């Protein structure tokens, strides 16, 4: 069945199809309509789940941690300040190895207040142990949310699915809605008991762990997150076989012979793709790499894609004050780890919901190809000064 739905409705639909059993959420723009829809499904009986409208995002994450610890499938959704408020429990849930799935509708962080989209909220959570996937279309949001449950439950690690605030969360697109039976065949019968839980042998979870053992816990967690790349690829392949839609961890668009590769994530990738197509028609060797899987970071895959290019320009919708853009840091780490590698340039654009327009991308291309000597470590696009 095809339906015209928004990015937020795509999330709620996936959560319904995944037969989630407990949802805890707190309203925050632009996430709110995800939880509203889920509340409606629970009230209509189209989703047999407990829906709890808790008193804060911190409580939302705590509630799903408690529920996931009993072995049920759980979900929550948030944005921006709400995600920041959850920070303490993001570490906790990944350390506890709970397969929680969360949608984060990307929105800028204050001060000053702003409700529009950028990716600084979720990129700031990169070290929390959560896996992160960034989506470009409403269809991809629905499909990635479904795959998130499969990945989370196979590696006992929580997964965050990102969609750009308003640009995707509130924009309706035609979306293929999967059949429930097909979703059941991907997700099976629900999560297995969480790591460390043995129903035959009750014990206390997460008690204080001395320096003699703490590192081993963290090593297990670290390996699971690294191994999640292979599992995510396997899940995407299974998904492709069932539904006919394929999602690589990193999308390559005309990168094969490209001398300049533009790197983007989220909806900005659509604008970049448009510009790349236009330049290709003019015979320019330009390509785009879209970061879909950000945690685990696919180092080998990224290195393979960019290693043939002369230069890489990273389009960031976030900043790391005192350093450079987060995406550029990660990319440099992948591109240079084997020595050599292309020249990497970093561009910041679209903070707090400012539009990223084709002219910004064209300017970026012009600068890296003909004005690289004028570029700084981080370059701001479309700044009013």
């Amino acid at each position, binding site marked *: 069945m095809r339906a015209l739905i928004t990015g937020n409705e795509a999330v709620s639909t996936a959560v319904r199809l995944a037969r989630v059993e407990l949802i805890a959420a707190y309203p925050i723009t632009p996430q709110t309509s995800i939880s509203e829809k889920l509340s409606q499904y629970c009230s209509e009986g189209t989703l047999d789940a407990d829906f709890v*409208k808790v*008193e804060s995002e911190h409580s939302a994450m705590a509630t799903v941690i408690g529920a996931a610890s009993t072995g049920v499938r759980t979900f929550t959704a948030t944005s921006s300040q709400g995600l920041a408020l959850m920070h303490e429990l993001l570490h906790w849930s990944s350390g506890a190895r709970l397969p929680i799935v969360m949608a984060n509708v990307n929105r800028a962080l204050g001060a000053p207040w702003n409700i529009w989209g950028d990716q600084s909220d979720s990129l700031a959570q990169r070290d929390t142990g959560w896996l992160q996937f960034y989506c470009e279309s409403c269809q991809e949001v629905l499909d990635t949310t479904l795959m998130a449950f499969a990945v989370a439950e196979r590696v006992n690690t929580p997964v965050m699915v990102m969609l750009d605030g308003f640009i995707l969360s509130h924009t309706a697109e035609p979306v293929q809605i999967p059949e429930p039976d097909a979703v059941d065949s991907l997700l099976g019968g629900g999560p297995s008991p969480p790591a460390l839980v043995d129903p035959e042998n009750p014990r206390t979870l997460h008690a204080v762990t001395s320096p003699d053992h703490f590192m081993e816990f963290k090593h297990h967690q670290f390996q699971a997150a690294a191994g999640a790349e292979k599992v995510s690829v396997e899940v995407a392949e299974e998904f492709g076989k069932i539904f006919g839609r394929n999602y690589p961890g990193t999308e390559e668009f005309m990168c094969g012979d490209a001398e300049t590769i533009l790197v983007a994530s989220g909806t900005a990738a659509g604008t970049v793709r448009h510009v790349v197509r236009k330049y290709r028609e003019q015979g320019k060797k330009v390509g785009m790499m879209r970061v879909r899987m950000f945690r685990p970071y696919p180092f080998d895959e990224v290195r393979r894609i960019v290693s043939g290019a002369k230069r890489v320009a990273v389009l960031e919708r976030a900043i790391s004050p005192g350093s450079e853009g987060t995406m550029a840091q990660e990319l440099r780490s992948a591109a240079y780890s084997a020595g050599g590698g292309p020249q990497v340039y970093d561009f910041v654009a679209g903070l707090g919901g400012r539009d990223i327009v084709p002219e910004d991308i064209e300017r970026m291309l012009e600068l890296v190809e003909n004005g690289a000597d004028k570029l700084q470590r981080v370059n701001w696009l479309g700044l009013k000064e």
Partner: protein
Amino acid sequence: MDTTVQAAPKPSTPSEYKSGLKPVWCPGCGDFGVLNALSQVYHRLEFDPMNTMLFSGIGCSSRIPGYLKGYGFNGVHGRVLPIATGAKLANPELTVIAAGGDGDGFSIGTGHFPHTCRRNVDITYIVMDNNIYGLTKGQLSPTSPGQMVTTTSSYGSIENPINPIGLAIGCGASFVARSFAGDIKHMVDVICQGIEHKGFSFIQILSPCVTFVGKDQFGIIKNQVRYLNEVEGYDPTDRSHAFQVADETGQISLGVIFQHPFPEYRHGTEIVRQRLIKRGVPEMKDLIAKFRP
């Protein structure tokens, strides 16, 4: 060159205390009444905008600092009380007012409320209670009545609402009052009393959301109102009387519900400071000598 900073002249009418920004509230919102009342309070108490600071959190009502002259601080959701506490402790000369809604104060920010009550810092906290999340367009709030159908309780709320008045009294607040956005004169009187009270003053103002709760709210509240200063024998220094008002059903009591001269927080810090001065700060060599065998 003369570098003396010229203070803006003090406003001379209530409307001059308004900033001139057009409020982003729905027509008919109770918060307009609260804004009018506050501008009259500022005028009656002859506030100097340079020494007045209005803090808020997040929500429709938390927009209010931008609409009044003086310093404003639009803070993080639910954290208005600790932010206001910090400012008041650092600058005791400042008149500090905190404002917000029921979602900000009794949901995400509830954890700060009991501690601000018992700490008794000289702040006036105005909660514009509309029983709903208005800014995010109509979700269940902690003061939404049971069975209320909202966008996050399509099934009808299955939770009991929080009782802000009972909570404040129970947590040791030294001034607890209630007013109604439909009665500006009463709001002005009660807010002035709250500001003049030395210590933490909590004022719940019933401020209807005409968009997501209903246009009938003003009438529903008005029909149940009684004024405590007209109730014979009501003693606002008696906690048991105050708890009876907190628990009442079928009527809505307005006015000062509870007031007690608990010492303000600074009283405690001053005692500690005086004790230190009296004892003196020991010399380092004397301290070391004390620990020598």
